[in-house]
């Protein structure tokens, strides 16, 4: 297939007449690396692939997802979970060991749409995929949308609500088959998603990403010692294999404190099972051993 000429996005469209200087500029920009325009137009993925056939399709989105899982986990706040809105720009490089470094800027949206305002946040990240090994290294900063205090307040309200819930051990699945989540059970889902974010961050590679399909059982829900001790199983939907992966997750959460989480997933494809433990040490050294 004959290569199509890709106009670099930043410079806009149109055929310049007196083109020498802009053309030289464009050429130098093109030579500096692989750049990409907003995803969703379909084109940037083409240009990434055409420049380097090693790069998997949708790499920018992969990186954004991994970064976002990490952001959610690190924030440790079930009341302010974020989802991916759009990838604004990004570039990627593959080294001889097939490891991928992706630099990107993306926007985020509220996970819970009922929270009213659609407040778009913005993050810039560097994601390093280790050729299908788990735990992509993530360096990410996001615009602060809610003040830390306000966020802690919201979390504390959620926490109080959770403490009042009858032990939900008879929960069959959330959401149910018809996609319903009882509003009173929504905090459980959000907390489960928070724990799931840790798992999904670790498991995301340049080829595989995850969605949390269902909370399939609650094994333990303890709220006596001033924290929520939550042991549960989620079903992760693995893309692009389409497989459903059950993961047993055990987390301990208290508003404002880093999340403690352990997990164990049943892998169907590979013989080794994925598991991990985290004590929130990724957040800040001073906040270790709070429990």
């Amino acid at each position, binding site marked *: 297939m004959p290569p199509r000429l890709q106009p670099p996005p930043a410079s806009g469209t149109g055929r310049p007449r007196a083109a020498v200087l802009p053309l030289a500029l464009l050429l130098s920009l093109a030579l500096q690396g692989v750049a990409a325009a907003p995803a969703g137009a*379909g084109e940037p993925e083409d240009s990434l692939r055409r420049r380097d056939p090693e790069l998997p399709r949708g790499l920018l989105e992969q990186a954004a997802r991994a970064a976002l899982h990490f952001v959610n986990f690190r924030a440790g706040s079930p009341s302010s979970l974020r989802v991916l809105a759009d990838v604004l720009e990004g570039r990627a490089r593959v080294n001889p060991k097939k490891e991928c470094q992706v630099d990107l800027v993306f926007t985020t949206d509220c*996970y819970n749409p009922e929270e009213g305002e659609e407040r778009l946040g913005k993050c810039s990240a560097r994601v390093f995929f280790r050729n299908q090994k788990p735990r992509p290294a993530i360096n990410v900063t996001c615009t602060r949308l809610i003040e830390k205090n306000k966020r802690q307040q919201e979390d504390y309200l959620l926490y109080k609500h959770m403490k009042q819930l009858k032990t939900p051990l008879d929960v069959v699945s959330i959401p149910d*088959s018809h996609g319903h989540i009882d509003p009173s059970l929504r905090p459980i889902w959000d907390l489960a998603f928070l724990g799931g974010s840790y798992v999904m961050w670790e498991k995301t590679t340049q080829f595989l990403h995850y969605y949390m*399909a*269902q909370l399939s059982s609650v094994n333990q829900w303890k709220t006596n010692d001033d924290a929520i001790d939550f042991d549960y199983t989620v079903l992760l939907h693995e893309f692009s294999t389409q497989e459903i992966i059950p993961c047993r997750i055990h987390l301990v959460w208290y508003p404002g404190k880093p999340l403690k989480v352990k997990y164990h997933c049943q892998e169907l494809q590979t013989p080794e099972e994925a598991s991990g433990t985290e004590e929130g040490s990724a957040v800040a050294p001073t906040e270790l051993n709070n429990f």
Partner: protein
Amino acid sequence: MKLLLGTLYLLGILVSEELGYDGSLAQHRREVVEETVSQRRGLDAYSYTRYHPMEEIYQWMIQISEKYAEVVTQHFLGMTYETRPMYYLKISQPSNNPKKIIWMDCGIHAREWIAPAFCQWFVKEILQNYKDDSRIKKLLRNLDFYVLPVLNIDGYIYTWTTDRLWRKSRSSHNNGTCFGTDLNRNFNVSWCSIGASRNCQDITFCGTGPVSEPETKAVSSFIESKKDNIVCFLTMHSFGQLILTPYGYTKNKSSNHEELIQVGQKAANALKEKHGTNYRVGSSADILYATSGSSRDWARDIGIPFSYTFELRDNGTYGFVLPEAQIQATCEESMAAMLSVLDDVYEKYWGVDSAGKAASSAVVLGLLFSFMSLL
């Protein structure tokens, strides 16, 4: 006098029967009327914004084809692995016009519940509006719609009874230790070459051979038998918000790729206008992942020009378990996309331009013949 009295007496009996004073005849008639009314009421009460188990969908198909008998007929396609009947609905406006076929199937993957919900919505929209809506009336002039609301019936039922996230069929393998074939990897197009698995335990198991599954066979044989008249093959899935063109088994593009993209993009634009939802358009290998044995690729390769996979809402937030609260919006926007595609297909074969061309070439031929007859 006696005759008059006799006649009056008989009339009296008839009248009283009508009024229901007598038992049997009027009672029976009333029961028949009531049953028809309740069936119709059943259809009136049928909610297109809820998910329905297979039994209700079977019933709905019967009721729909009875209520709209002038344009709808129900047809048997084949049997599933667990010996359940597969039915499709044919919507066809009787006329002398030459007709081409639009095929739509939903639910080839069991867990994608929004797809069968959309098929039912689509049928409902066409039938409720074909008399008054000029756009739909026009389409029905030359197009017949064949709609298969649930392709993978066994799998669909399994998602209701046992495992909401089941994807494959329910065929048994390896002495009953392993179940299900991914029906969308089972078609005879570059079968099992890429993006599919030979291992029955895997969720993309391609089957024991191309078209090994009864469901695939049923659809394949039927489409094959009608392929000269099918202009559009649409297969509905979720999730992902994508309009996919061929191919999945190769990065090569079909001969009409540009056109497919254009039509697809127009449909995505029409969709977005409804509720702002973003859909991406592209070949499966380009924007999704490599797959082989898909129904869409197979349909294109046997010559059906417009072949699309639609991946409906959402983008992963709920994924397969899309809340019922989103059914209406999803169906409305998807309907807009569908009508856009159908309009384009219609224009291509019976549009003003093509009619004009046909007319002018007829005129030329006519002149030619009359000229030649003068010689």
